[in-house]
């Protein structure tokens, strides 16, 4: 029983790795489906803007509110901008953006591809001589990988604005103090790290969505199951990979 579970897990890892390798290899093979990639960029990037904006704004606002209470006891409320900026750029911006995308994009990809599998549309595509990994997987992967860093930047920016409004109206800090402390605290390495991690997170979210979608079986119930599994698996993989990426970034920048 235990051995079977291990074998099943290894098979899943093998299939996921093969699909990921094919999706990357397709970037160097024709046809390239540029139009599909731009369509996906619009769906993923522009379509996710509102939720990312709201997530960033209120996370920044809550960070400012919560940190002010602790900083006040040290007489350091003026450093609120630093705490908000560093937390957002280094960690919360990339991770929260990826988790929101796992919920919105990962589930969307899994349910769309899953529905295509159960209604034979994927087989029809193959029967018409089109490789579904080229037509469906690679454009989604490329679009998510390019859009996630941009959405992370939006999340960071609106988080800083949320923190600034709280600092200004709740904590009665001067705008110039908040922004100067915030910008001074962010190093070049923070920016590189904060915008590199989303590339990996984008890859994870899109590939898990595609893999779960293409592995769907069992009709409409199976589509629901794949969608849930895609969100759960992508979220967990984002959080686990975040730890290792942080370790790597710290090693490389120290």
């Amino acid at each position, binding site marked *: 029983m235990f051995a079977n579970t291990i074998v099943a897990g290894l098979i899943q890892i093998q299939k996921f790795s093969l699909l990921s390798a094919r999706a990357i290899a397709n970037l160097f093979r024709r046809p390239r489906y540029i139009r599909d990639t731009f369509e996906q960029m619009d769906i993923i990037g522009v379509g996710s803007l509102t939720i990312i904006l709201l997530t960033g704004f209120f996370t920044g606002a809550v960070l400012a509110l919560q940190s002010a209470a602790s900083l006040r006891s040290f007489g350091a409320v003026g450093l609120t901008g630093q705490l908000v900026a560093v937390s957002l750029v280094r960690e919360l911006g990339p991770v929260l953006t990826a988790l929101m995308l796992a919920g919105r994009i990962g589930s969307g990809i899994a349910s769309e591809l899953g529905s*295509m599998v159960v209604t034979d549309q994927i087989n029809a595509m193959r029967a*018409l001589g089109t*490789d579904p990994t080229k037509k469906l997987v690679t454009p989604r992967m490329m679009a998510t990988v390019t859009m996630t860093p941009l959405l992370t930047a939006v999340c960071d920016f609106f988080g800083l604005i949320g923190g600034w409004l709280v600092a200004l109206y709740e904590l009665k800090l001067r705008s110039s103090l908040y922004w100067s402390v915030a910008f001074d605290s962010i190093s070049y390495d923070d920016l590189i790290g904060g915008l590199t991690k989303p590339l990996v997170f984008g890859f994870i979210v899109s590939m898990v969505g595609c893999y779960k979608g293409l592995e769907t079986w069992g009709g409409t119930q199976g589509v629901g199951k794949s969608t849930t599994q895609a969100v759960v698996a992508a979220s967990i993989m984002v959080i686990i990979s975040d730890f290792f990426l942080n370790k790597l970034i710290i090693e490389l920048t120290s």
Partner: protein
Amino acid sequence: MIHLEDVSISFGGEQILRDIHMDVGPAECMILLGPSGSGKSTLMKIVIGLVRADSGRIVVAGHELSSMTENEMMAVRQKVGMVFQEGALFDSLSVRENVAYRLYDEGGWSEEEIEERVLQLLSFVDMQHTIDMMPAELSGGMRRRVAIARALLGNPRILIYDEPTSGLDPITARSICDLMVKLRDLEGVTSLVVTSDLSAAFFLSTYTARLDEENETVILSSETDDVCYIHTRFSVLKDGGILFEGNLNELKGADNPFIQEFIT
């Protein structure tokens, strides 16, 4: 056109098909009958390369599929049309984009050329008026007709039908059968049909299409008209093997109790 030799496949330790031999000649129609789970759909998917057999030789339109890679098979699939159960039209594309899918995929075709080709194919299945509609707006029968039009792009010499009439009312099912007969007898298309609809299967083996003096298509019955020979044979699958192969008269006269029970 289709040649299978010693084809076997198993899934999860269960033997689905066992030493299958089959030959389907040009302009011939082979109807696969059998109970659920007998391996009909798997056999059909093996012929178009959607599923790989564990062993055996598969030759389709002169190409040996058994030794081909997935990429090489993509090129062969463009020469074979397939009509899926329920049509399997792409939900997010209009009827025009569905029918012209291969042309859009190839690129280099002008909108006028695409429109002309799509209208030509849709008129063959009498669906010109649906060109700008989405698949969700079509009925089951209309979807099947559009799927046939899509499969015909590129003039395939082989067409594979998966349950083409299941779930359709008798009149719509008859219109789909008329199309299949026309393709077989007037266009010379080789067909492999998986069906559990016996009336459709018997129709295909007793009716034929001819052109009259005014070049209009007429569908004739071998029972009432002077039709001497219809290119349709039956294969009955049971437990992964071929239990019977022959024409309609041989099928009706088979003394196997399973076949008798199945066709009555």
